[in-house]
């Protein structure tokens, strides 16, 4: 068991390092690009990988590697932004609803019911489609689909935490509501929410790339992995690398984030596979309950 846990920790650190490296790569990607990612040169279109163009060129003669490097920032950071927004919005709404209850709680939870009634992709398509194309709108669309899940989760944890002895103790101490919420409730509710968020990063990258692939994300000249796939799909027979390399990049990035998500879950909720949070609750008590 301890050996397993040590292995888990090493794995988590390794994956976190890799994810950090990827984020660094996204930041300095444009500097690393061997060529101008936006320079159209039809004479060099559809060239196979060579020394000058390590991953070949696309239908407009633009360097595929450079476009992948520049697009990394868009693809990865937008997905992280979506996860950040959904986590924050869901967390705030869920915590307030769970703690205060009452009419606001009822209204928001009915709203959550309505949002969850839509199949995820249908709502994202509807929002992105109505707002029009553009990366910002795609982010809004995915955030609109994501927040209710977090709100409901946060609310359910806060509902049980609210009745814990340490919360009563804090109240008896004369702590203000905000201090109770921020110091006692939120830190305890956050752990499972962070697990959910880290498990959803990979899926969000896919969702965003999917919207871009459909033409609802980043607008044409901009480099984005999903739209690169979409641009290259007509040329697959003559120049498969236009599709293969961005596709491989998406795939590997999602693999990395999925592994990271699993690792974070194992570290924060070391229960068995099936019941993510079964063993976490008693730990709350030990940690937070003051000896009365």
């Amino acid at each position, binding site marked *: 068991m301890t050996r397993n846990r040590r292995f888990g920790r090493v794995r988590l650190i390794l994956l976190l390092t890799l994810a950090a490296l990827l984020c660094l790569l996204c930041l300095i990607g444009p500097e690393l690009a061997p060529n101008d990612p936006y320079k159209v040169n039809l004479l060099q279109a559809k060239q196979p990988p060579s020394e000058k163009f390590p991953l070949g060129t696309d239908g407009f003669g633009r360097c595929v590697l450079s476009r992948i490097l520049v697009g990394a920032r868009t693809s990865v950071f937008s997905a992280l932004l979506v996860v950040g927004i959904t986590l924050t919005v869901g967390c705030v709404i869920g915590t307030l609803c769970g703690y205060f209850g009452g009419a606001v709680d009822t209204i928001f939870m009915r*709203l959550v019911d309505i949002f969850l*009634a*839509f199949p995820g*992709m249908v709502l994202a398509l509807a929002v992105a489609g109505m*707002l*029009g194309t553009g990366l910002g709108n795609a982010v809004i669309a995915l955030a609109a689909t994501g927040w209710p899940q977090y709100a409901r989760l946060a609310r359910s944890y806060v509902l049980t935490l609210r009745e814990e002895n340490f919360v009563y103790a804090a109240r008896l101490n004369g702590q203000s509501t905000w201090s109770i919420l921020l110091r006692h409730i939120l830190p305890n509710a956050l752990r499972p929410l962070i697990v959910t968020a880290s498990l959803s990063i990979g899926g969000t990258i896919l969702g965003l790339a999917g919207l871009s*692939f*459909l033409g609802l994300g980043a607008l044409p000249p901009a480099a984005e992995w999903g739209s690169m796939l979409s641009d290259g799909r007509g040329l697959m027979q003559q120049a498969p690398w236009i*599709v293969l390399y961005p596709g491989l990049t998406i795939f590997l990035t999602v693999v990395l984030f999925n592994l990271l998500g699993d690792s974070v879950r194992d570290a924060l909720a070391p229960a068995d*596979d099936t019941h993510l949070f079964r063993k976490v609750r008693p730990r709350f008590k030990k940690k937070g309950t003051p000896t009365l």
Partner: protein
Amino acid sequence: MENSLRPDRGSLGRFVLRRLLLLIPVLFGVTFLTYGLMFLSPSDPVEMMLQAQGIPVTPEVAQAMRVKMGLDRPFLEQYFAWLWRFLSGDMGVSLIDGEPVRQMLMAAAPKTLLLTATSLLVTVALSLPLGILTAVRQNRFSDYLIRFLSFLGNAMPSFLLSLLLLYLFALRLNLLPVLAGGGAKGLILPTLALSLPMSGRYIRQVRAAVLEQLGQRYVSGAISRGVRTRTVLFKSVLRNAMTTILTLLALSMGSLLGGTAAVERIFSWRGMGYMVMDAIFMRDYPVIQAFVVWMTVLYVVINLLTDLSYAIVDPRSRKGLGVQP
């Protein structure tokens, strides 16, 4: 306890009624949001329509059209008028070519439903046996191999897999057609592209569900009493894992509704996903609205049926049904 021993048909009926009543406000909200989204849109439907019909847009013409379409009236009035027409089966006409939305949906829906059904079938056919196999052979070679593959499948977006399958089977090996066309042969690649990533997700969950059951005491009890492993597995374990599997089915329906859009585009499979993407690019609001509302109604019904099937498969869950909204 008595409740679980004697299945009470009456409470099941009341449960259904309760669920149906609870659906009314949800569906109101869904239609309201869907209709309201149009007003968030930066472009004006009247202008879009006039442009599509080749009529020069002047303020007077636009205003006349707005009055004719009822777009000058207050929002709530418009919403209820729209909802009323929608409920009576009139989903409006396409802003682009004036074709009734109802007809467009009728033409596209069977194709999407067919693709959804085949993908679902393949997903179940793959993830159920493989999930059980990996659970039974836990920590053996086949377990590791299948888990590894399912992990990769989970990270593979269906649009990328579509392109890879197209490249391999249609362009390189020339075995299957590039465009789905409509024949059975054309259905193979889109089905695989949708079901392989889903199976990747569900093999792991079936495995977890079966593993959880295998750890229960009734399993060791039955085996120590000399019941054959196969009997325990298929008569008890699988039945107990059924609720998880039903949940998976409902979830995969949810991700397929709308999730087929990219695959339909790639294979030119003219289903609802294909139709709605056209509508989105043309800003054809009535089509988008009809798509969203119908997909959501379908999903809501599926979820209701799933909850009902829990009660049938697992009598123990009946007690809790009334509480869970």
